[in-house]
């Protein structure tokens, strides 16, 4: 029964990871930037929901408020920093976002304190299989909302004018520019949308799990991992590998113990990259 519990927990958690990873894939594909501050944006979104909870508003409304605020935060970050590093060396952009990440971490630490907090949603729990499996309703709620947002975004990307402009820029920024797409605006919008997705995910995380100012980096690493396993622009792949990661984490938690949970995530990243390198090198040998 424990394994069923872990699987279900993992899948519900993985859907959340997939939402964050989707944002990362979006900006990676469009702007060719890896945002180390991704996780910190998630945590910031979480604090927005937490503050609504503190002031007596049900934290579930954070799902609507957080993305709106985070969208503008994202655009502000883009205007201040990212637009200066978009077409530069890859390492420069990683280091710049690493700086933003440290900055955010510490600002959140000052503003909200270093305690582990959660926004209590009072959703109760669901019992399954003769009360052997316990699922908090908040987890089911968060998975449902994540899927809803992902579907909305996919439709928006397919149908709207901005969505088409974003996809065109991702395919070939120069050609898009020649054909009259304002790429600067597209980049800003992409970063804003990514931040908004992080905001939604953060609000959901503050309801279902806990948030803490220094917890950002693991989320960045998880979403990076999901994107490299799935590949850019492969949406079902992102969802599948997100769930896979969630299940892996729950099992690592049961087997190795909670103190090794984050460490195992980072080790898995290294293992995946090593596997990828050997696979690629085998491919290269064929070309000889």
């Amino acid at each position, binding site marked *: 029964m424990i394994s069923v519990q872990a699987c279900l927990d993992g899948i519900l958690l993985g859907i959340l990871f997939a939402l964050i990873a989707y944002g990362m894939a979006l900006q990676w594909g469009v702007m060719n930037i*890896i945002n*180390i501050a991704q996780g910190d944006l998630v945590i910031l979104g979480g604090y927005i929901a937490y503050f609504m909870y503190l002031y007596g508003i049900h934290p579930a409304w954070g799902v609507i408020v957080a993305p709106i605020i985070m969208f503008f935060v994202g655009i502000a970050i883009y205007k201040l*920093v990212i637009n*200066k*590093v978009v077409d*530069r*060396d*890859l*390492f*420069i952009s*990683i*280091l*710049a976002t*690493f*700086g*933003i*990440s*440290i*900055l*955010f*971490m*510490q*600002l959140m630490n*000052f503003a909200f304190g270093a305690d582990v907090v959660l926004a209590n949603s009072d959703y109760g729990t669901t019992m399954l299989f003769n009360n052997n499996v316990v699922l908090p309703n908040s987890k089911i709620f968060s998975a449902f909302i994540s899927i809803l947002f992902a579907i909305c975004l996919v439709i928006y990307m397919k149908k709207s004018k901005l969505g088409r402009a974003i996809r065109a820029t991702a395919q070939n920024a120069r050609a898009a520019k020649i054909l009259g797409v304002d790429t600067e605006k597209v980049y800003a919008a992409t970063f804003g949308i990514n931040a908004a997705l992080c905001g939604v995910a953060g609000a959901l995380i503050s309801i279902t799990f806990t948030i803490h100012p220094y917890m950002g*980096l693991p989320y960045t*690493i998880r979403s*990076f991992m999901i994107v*490299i396993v799935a590949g850019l622009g492969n949406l079902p792949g992102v969802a599948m590998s997100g769930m896979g990661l969630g299940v892996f984490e729950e099992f690592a938690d049961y087997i190795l*113990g909670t*103190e*090794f949970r*984050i*460490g195992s995530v*980072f*080790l898995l*990243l*290294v293992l995946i*990259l*090593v596997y*990828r*390198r*050997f696979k*690629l*090198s085998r491919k290269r040998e064929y070309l000889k």
Partner: protein
Amino acid sequence: MKNNLILYIGILIFGIAAPFIFPAFKVQLSILCVLIILATTWNIQGGEMGYNSFGNILFYGLGMYLCASVQVGMFFPLAEWTESGGEKTFVHTPTQFFQGMAVGLIVAAVVPTIVAGLIGYSILGLRGHYFAICTLGLGVAAGEISGGIEIIGAGQGFTTPPFPNVGSLELRGEFFYFLSFFTLVLTFVAVRSIYPTRFKLILNAIRDNEDKAEAMGIETMKYKIIGWMISAFFCGLAGGIMGGLVGYIDSTDVAFDGREMGVFMVLMAILGGKGTLWGPIIGATVFHIFKEGFWTFFLGWQYVALGVLIVVIVIYFPEGIMGWLREKYPDRFGEVVDEKDRKAQVELK
């Protein structure tokens, strides 16, 4: 060349005299030496080879833990030492302390080098983003995992053996200063001797275009691993010294401190100008002076200042101090400049 020799001798004399001129800053000067070692070694694979690693902190932390563990483990049971949490139940005699330190430093240098070889074989095939994030992951994973291992103190930390009572109290500072200064000289000599060789040219070729370098018949993998192993060797040594200097090892705040040391070494190399011999040294000195001078004014806001500093340096100053000097005085760097061309460019600006 003659000027250089005088410069080196001058710096050497200054380095030896420094703890006696500024006796109050001995610890700071030792930390400066460690920072310069870290920045210079990061520069070997970050600046010259073009493999920007966030993970050299792994070797630094590994060296720190290994040196302290060997120093304790040679004479006393390690588990009981860490369990007592720095209580003075076991005391090193001076001979034991120095013997332990010497063996510990050797282990702290050799083991990270081997680890770098093994890890390097598996991950140095990655490029760009993937390598940077992978090394970042390695550094954090090491911190998280070492924080869960009981025998080296787990969450509560590891107190390194206190300096034995030999004569005056001043000796501790002098011992660590000269140890770190000697290591710094060793590092500098090693790096300096790499510079005129073919090995350095190969590293630069890997940075500029790895595929072409490979096509020219260079076994890039071999040289990349050697480059990383050189880095790891000195990082481990620096870690071992720093562990003894700080006197307390914690998995995420001292040893595998990606937020501080891990970023500092990258930042210092970039600030000074990566891919140059003197850049990291200048960068580390400037950075350390800035840090010690202004950190106290920020009072708790230092990480905010650090974040802003990273962003500003990376965006507005990616060439670093050496790059700026090179642009300003190109003839000093042995570059021949056409005067007419230069004037035309100045007018254009």
